[in-house]
């Protein structure tokens, strides 16, 4: 008679936390549905309420959180269900996997036990049967030798394997709905590709409904059929994936997509960015949560305060109408979705999306190749002594960096990319001599005291903006510290600190505040200001944007580009995110297990990668474009990156390489010229 109820139907969901500082409305009037066999992607930045939503659906909020509204799973109302009844549904009909599989698995029980335990709770199965089930499930998620691995503990698994085990556990009871909360965020990009592939396969085989929660628009584009964009605890926009990516309606979605550095776009165009940072839920702005950062709202504010003020509706103004129409289906869309377009032009009054005016030519190109490079690195090597076990034996030493060489011209940016453990950060830290290289030439011979004058020329920007600022010092102290060490007077250093704040887009009046009073993006600006205090010629930036929200990343990337142009800086830009590296670099070096496997001009490297690892890496990066994602041919590497403590013989990449031949197993390839760049591969190119 009527259409069957959707697998998951959430209506008017609200979650309020009571904290000593007041109540926080983390999720507000949220509604969505998920059908069997379909994937809903929920995207949002920190504090958007996406994870809170997933926990509310699972009924996992404990005391202190108040959940209102309705969650129906296959027609059964879940909110208000007694804990005991809820427990029967949880894990049985809907299951969840989490971001960090290591801490989400109990360290004291074997992986097999934990899966079997899940099975036994819901089915009255015997121990032996449950154990068989655990082994079967491990096999199904692609864990080799499942019978043996079932007897191992989570810490004996690699990151990717752990997430596979989590998936095996979640699916052990054949649930209808799988909620995945940032399942690949802690993983390397090649491993992420494997996990996404696995989830897609299992979904197809079992007709699972999937809710994929992530901050990564690329992941959403790859897996989602429908997308829900959250901001400040509310739905900003909801639409089928294709429509949303092709034609974002909400200014926030549009801004997010525009500000994203992407692999498949030209990067000489300035990167628009959303000003400000994600809102505090404790003191929500009245009206639309996005209003303070929104170009439309700012424009509207001029005449008649439309779109903000009055009531805090679920969706507001034009975007609201557009979005509500979207919910009905892409066909009947009204031509109201253009507001965001306005923001592409620089707005008068400096209100909305800021963008650097032009991108200058790198200074080095003008100087020509004759000039001596600013930095010359030869055979840089770092060997860490093996860990001493409790019995006093040392394990084999770890070659974290193994003979890295490159040149960097003044005013140029070298991007250093690779997965975790490839030695890129170690390289960066050796360049500023935070680590003493085991061997290598040039500046690395200087002692720490002889180094002090040199310090002025090489500075560093760190990953975690808050942990890189001493919480007990004022911004003035933090920025002027390197100057005081160089012997500046306190007054001069303070004046210079204020100038630097101005230069990096901070308000100089805030000079006597403490780091905790700044947002992540602002804190990173402070970090950059400090690195510039001594007027260095080279700045090593170690993952400078990876801890920041997507909408803030673009601000920092733009700032760094502007500073490079204005001050003639050179950067070594270390990152795991290939899109960001592509955006900022002139030359790119790809590292694998402590060695550079490919280095060359950015454009040719990204367009025509020669090393099979570079190819795989590039193909693993999800693009924020569902259509392109479907067209792409993907190379999914097998396994995890090996441990640098026990690198494979010969070419260290050979165990994962699709093209590996006999020679790769025995002979280490050296960097040599291929297709206008240097590649360390026996069989470069196609």
């Amino acid at each position, binding site marked *: 008679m009527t259409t069957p109820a959707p697998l998951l139907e959430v209506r008017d969901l609200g979650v309020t936390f009571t904290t000593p*500082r007041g109540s926080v409305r*983390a999720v507000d009037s949220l509604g969505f549905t998920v059908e069997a066999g379909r994937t809903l992607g929920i995207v949002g*930045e*920190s*504090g*958007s*309420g*996406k*994870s*809170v939503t997933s926990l509310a659906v699972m009924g996992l909020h404990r005391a202190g959180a108040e959940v209102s509204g309705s969650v129906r799973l296959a027609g059964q109302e879940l909110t208000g269900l007694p804990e005991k009844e809820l427990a029967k549904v949880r894990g049985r009909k809907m299951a969840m996997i989490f*971001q960090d599989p290591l801490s989400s698995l109990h360290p004291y029980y074997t992986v097999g036990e934990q899966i079997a335990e899940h099975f036994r709770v819901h089915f009255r199965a015997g121990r032996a049967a449950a154990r068989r089930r655990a082994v079967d499930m491990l096999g199904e998620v692609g864990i080799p030798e499942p019978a043996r691995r079932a007897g191992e503990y989570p810490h004996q698994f690699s990151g990717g394997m752990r997430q596979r085990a989590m998936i095996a556990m979640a699916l052990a009871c054949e649930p209808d709905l799988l909620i995945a909360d*940032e399942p690949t*965020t*802690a993983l390397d990009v090649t491993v992420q590709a494997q996990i996404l592939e696995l989830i897609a396969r299992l979904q197809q085989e079992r007709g699972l409904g999937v809710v994929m929660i*992530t*901050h990564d628009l690329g992941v959403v584009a790859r897996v989602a059929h429908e997308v829900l964009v959250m901001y400040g605890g509310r739905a900003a926009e909801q639409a089928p994936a294709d429509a949303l990516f092709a034609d974002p309606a909400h200014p926030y979605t549009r801004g997010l997509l525009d500000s994203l550095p992407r692999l498949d776009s030209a990067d000489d165009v300035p990167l628009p960015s959303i000003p400000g*940072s*994600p809102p*505090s*839920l*404790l003191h929500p702005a009245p009206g639309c949560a996005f209003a303070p950062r929104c170009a439309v709202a700012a424009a509207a504010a001029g005449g008649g305060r439309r779109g903000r003020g009055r009531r805090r509706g679920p969706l507001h103004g034009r975007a609201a109408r557009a979005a509500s129409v979207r919910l009905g289906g892409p066909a009947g869309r009204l031509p109201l979705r253009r507001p965001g377009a306005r923001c592409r032009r620089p707005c008068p009054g400096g209100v909305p999306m800021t963008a650097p005016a032009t991108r200058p030519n790198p200074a080095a190109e003008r100087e020509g190749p004759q000039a001596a490079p600013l930095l010359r690195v030869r055979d840089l090597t770092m060997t860490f002594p093996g860990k001493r076990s409790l019995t006093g034996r040392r394990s084999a030493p770890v070659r974290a960096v193994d003979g890295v060489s490159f040149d960097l011209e003044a005013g140029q940016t070298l991007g250093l990319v690779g997965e975790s*453990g490839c030695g890129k*950060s170690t390289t960066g*830290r050796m360049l*500023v001599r*935070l680590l003493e290289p085991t061997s290598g030439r040039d500046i690395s011979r200087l002692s*720490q005291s002889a180094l*002090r004058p040199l*310090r*002025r020329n*090489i*500075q*560093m920007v*760190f990953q*975690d903006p808050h*942990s*890189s*600022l*001493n919480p*007990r010092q*004022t911004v003035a102290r933090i920025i002027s*510290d*390197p100057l005081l*060490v160089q012997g500046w007077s306190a007054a001069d250093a303070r004046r210079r600190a204020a100038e630097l704040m101005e230069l990096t887009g901070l308000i100089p009046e*805030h000079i*006597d*505040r403490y780091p*905790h*009073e*700044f*947002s992540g993006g*602002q*804190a990173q600006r402070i970090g950059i200001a*400090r*690195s510039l*205090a001594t007027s260095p010629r080279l700045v090593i930036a170690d*993952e400078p944007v*990876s*801890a920041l929200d*997507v909408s803030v990343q673009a601000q920092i990337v733009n700032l760094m580009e502007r500073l490079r142009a204005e001050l003639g800086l050179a950067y070594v830009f270390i990152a795991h995110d290939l899109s960001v590296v592509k955006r900022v670099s002139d030359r790119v070096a790809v590292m694998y297990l402590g060695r550079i496997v490919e280095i060359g001009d950015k454009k040719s490297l990204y367009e025509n990668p020669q090393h099979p690892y570079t190819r795989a890496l590039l193909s693993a990066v999800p693009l924020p474009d569902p259509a392109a994602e479907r067209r792409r041919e993907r190379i999914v590497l097998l396994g995890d990156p090996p441990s640098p403590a026990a690198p494979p013989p010969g070419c260290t990449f050979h165990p994962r390489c699709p093209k590996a031949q006999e020679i790769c197993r025995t002979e280490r390839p050296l960097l040599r010229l291929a297709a206008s760049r240097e590649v360390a591969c026996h069989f470069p190119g196609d």
Partner: protein
Amino acid sequence: MTTTAPGAAPEAAPAGAQAKDVPPGSSPWQLARRELRRRPAVRVSLCVVLLFVLMALTAPWLGALGGWSPEEFDKAAVDPYLAGQPLGSFGGISPEHWLGVEPVTGRDLFARVVHGAQVSLLIAFAATAIVVLTGTAAGIAAGYFGGRTDAVLSRLMDLTMSFPSLIFMIAMLSVAKDVNRIVLMTSVIGLFGWPGVARVVRGQTLSLKHREYVDAARVGGSGAWRILTRDILPGVSGPVIAYTTLLIPGMISTEAALSYLGVGVRPPTPSWGQMIAESVAFYETDPMYFVIPSVFLFLAVLAFTLLGDALRDILDPRGGRS
């Protein structure tokens, strides 16, 4: 080299989520003080603590206020025919003797308790000072310099912690005869307390040492001394303050226990533990004599513990363990 994910902590309030009443430019210390002031338990225990400290500091004058010196006998206050029982109810509490008198001797309990506070708190504070200073120094050295320094200091901590401390203290105090008891007690108690502080500080230093802001200072050209004094020391001070406050009640208890066993301060100098020891024999005939110093001891320990708990909650939320 893990990559922190944006959006990893959905419930963490974004920056700027400080309560609105906090003025801009508040240092972490100011925030902590504000937080402390909001708690009623803190205010009450702080008052009690201050009262005791004041009592100890002004003991000679405060004691004189009652009109008796702690060693003065008052035969008129005890009944010679009833085995020296104090005259009057509740252990002889009267306008003359505010907290009653000792049986047999008739010494004024108020004067003795007040002077006892001085001795007990002096020893506790002095021992705590020794413990905290050595512990912090050793902990920072071990944590920051690592390697051989750490190995030696850590061994020393393990060794000291393996000593049966109470038994050892008793033994040491009992063999040393003609020394200043207060100095001796202070140093003996201090000798066994430092490894606890040192471990906390070492753990904290180790975690601070790997913070990026220490790296940043080094990249900025700061030397070891500058980093130690400007980055590490302020960083460990929070947990150290909390730990110190929690150490004091333990020290007061230890002093009392040693004096109770008769190896602490010697009569006629009063200390709480020793007063309790003397009064145990009278607990049936003159319970007030036994109860009064016990209550003082109990209150002092309780107040310091409550204060320390609150400080730890705020200054060292993760318990100082590495």
